[in-house]
């Protein structure tokens, strides 16, 4: 299910050991996308970084402040969350009206024009990223668009461009992946895992960390097979089912019908209603 549209796969490598939790990226995101700091449903003012902050239709990235235990002490870690921009996206494959598409740079885009509002993308996303405008009469799904117009111009996304500590490194995904492996193999403090390298077929956003990803709220039970790959195990049988089904029913129908006629002819009447 490799997508041929993506010719220039970009990515962002997030080094969680460098993030200081300032939240600049969340502010840059709000500004670039012209979003308020109000919760869409409760209308309360809220920061997009802090403890227990969550993505919503008005907040496409957050920095989640996590108090975790490391080497016997409690330490703070700051986890940026946004759409992971899967290489083989679940949202794109499950959407029955093709509201999602990928750009050349691998940004997963949503087009509200085509959306029916079934919310399958929301429940299918392995990272629970798409959010809904529940407060609206005619709602759309909302999620990070990877600043696709900036990417198309060769620029970094808004969030990565303002990071003061270089925790967000923008570039070509394969180069970032090589760099991530270089970093974790040269420094023993890192967990030996690049999150996003293989999860659900790989994601544009990659993470390295000195604390196990499970403790930072990342789903750790994701298969290496992409969601579309998993579904394709079924959908590839669609046409065969119809073909075999229709042929079988026609064959059985003709056979049983003929058997009844023969039966009737032999007995002179039908004894079965």
């Amino acid at each position, binding site marked *: 299910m490799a997508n041929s549209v993506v010719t220039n796969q970009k990515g962002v490598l997030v080094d969680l050991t460098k993030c200081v939790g300032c939240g600049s990226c969340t502010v840059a995101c709000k500004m670039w996308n012209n979003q308020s700091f109000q919760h869409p449903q409760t209308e309360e003012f809220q920061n997009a970084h802090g403890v227990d902050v969550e993505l919503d239709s008005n907040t496409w990235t957050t920095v989640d402040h996590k108090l975790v235990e490391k080497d016997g002490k409690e330490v703070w870690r700051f986890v940026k969350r946004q759409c992971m921009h899967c290489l083989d996206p679940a949202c794109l494959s499950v959407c029955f009206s093709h509201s999602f598409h990928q750009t050349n740079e691998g940004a997963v885009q949503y087009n509200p024009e085509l959306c029916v509002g*079934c919310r399958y993308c929301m429940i299918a996303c392995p990272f629970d990223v798409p959010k809904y405008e529940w407060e609206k009469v005619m709602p759309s799904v909302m999620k990070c668009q990877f600043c696709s117009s900036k990417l198309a111009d060769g620029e970094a996304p808004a969030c990565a461009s303002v990071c003061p500590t270089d925790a967000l490194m923008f570039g070509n995904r394969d180069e970032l992946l090589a760099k991530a492996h270089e970093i974790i193999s040269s420094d023993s403090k890192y967990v030996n895992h690049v999150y996003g390298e293989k999860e659900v077929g790989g994601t544009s956003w990659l993470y390295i960390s000195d604390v196990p990803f499970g403790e930072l709220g990342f789903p750790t039970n994701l298969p290496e097979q992409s969601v579309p790959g998993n579904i394709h195990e079924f959908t590839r049988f669609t046409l065969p089912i119809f073909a075999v089904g229709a042929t079988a029913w026609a064959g059985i129908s003709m056979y049983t019908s003929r058997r009844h006629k023969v039966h009737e002819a032999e007995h002179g009447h039908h004894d079965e209603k």
Partner: protein
Amino acid sequence: MSGKRWSFKITPIRIAMFAIFAVTLVMYLYRYYVGLGAVTDLNDAYPWGAWIGADMNVIALAGAGFSMAIISHIFHAHKYEPLARRCLLMSFIGYVLVLLILIIEIGRWDNFWRPFVSPNLHSPMFEVYMCIVAYLVLQVIELVEVVTEKVAPKVQQKMQSIMPIVFIAACTVPLGHQASLGALYLAMPAKLDAIWASQMMPWLFVFSSFFIGPCVAIVEYIWTSARYKMKVDTDMLYSLSRISAVLMAIYFVAKCADIVVRGQVGNVFAFNMTGNMFLLEMLLLTVVPIVIHLTPFGKTKGGLLTFGISGMAGLVLTRLNVVFTGMAAHLGGGYFPSFLEIFTTVGGFCFAFLVYLYVTENFPFFYGVAGDAEGKPVGESAESGFNQAIM
């Protein structure tokens, strides 16, 4: 008969159902005016709720339409033909009910037509949608053929040339959406509880929606017979229940194999919420009906009724367990259907019920069991039963 044909007996229960449906329609307008979030408890963590749960169940039970059609039209077991007709009617009403719920469930109802012009062939949801629409069209043709038999025989004669193709198609298309409903959850292998998250899900869904057909047919037959004080042909129902029982046994073995192969035996017998719900689902859908069938009780009216109701309850559990029980650990407990969600669902069922009663009472040949294969207007003999209708 002519004077009475378009009548509808009014009882207090029916008035209540009318009232609930009328209020439901007002709620529909209100929901369209204020939006989805204002009237439901659905939220970002819980995007699918009671309406989806209801739809999954109605479609699964409405599988009775295609499974009884396969038994009577494909395998030419003619003695079940009257039952197949009733199941066709119930199934059609069921699918209309599903669409009725879906038009308020989807967030952008004005975009309902988009999948037709912007299709995604890889989405199981697309297959569900297309097959349901195609099946509704086929069902309308089948129903017209049944109705014109008495009302406009000439039209019915002309339709005969296309009916074999329609029957074959109507027995094939539901395979697509019944299986795809299970395939919807192939997208969440890491979210759905491992007891249910199997690649076999689509096939188990389509198989269970098939063998539930006789259960639905038996329950409806016994209930209708009670309404019209007609004799119950327990021999015929018993042989029909055998079809279900055999397939239930195969399903039981397949499900056990699926659990064992995926190493889920420990989770099933963990005696927690998910394990217990799975055991209950298997008990009601397979074990109880099979045991009833193997005992003399299975040949009695009460036994057949218990057989059917247990199977239907078990099937409902299989779908609810996937939509709610199996997803609860991931989605959390942040959802309970709102008053409007519950009321409109009940209202939808009231509508379905009223349509069913109206059609069966005004087109008696739908429920005619004894003798309508002879072309005898069964309505005539059952006419007196109308006035004694229980409901």
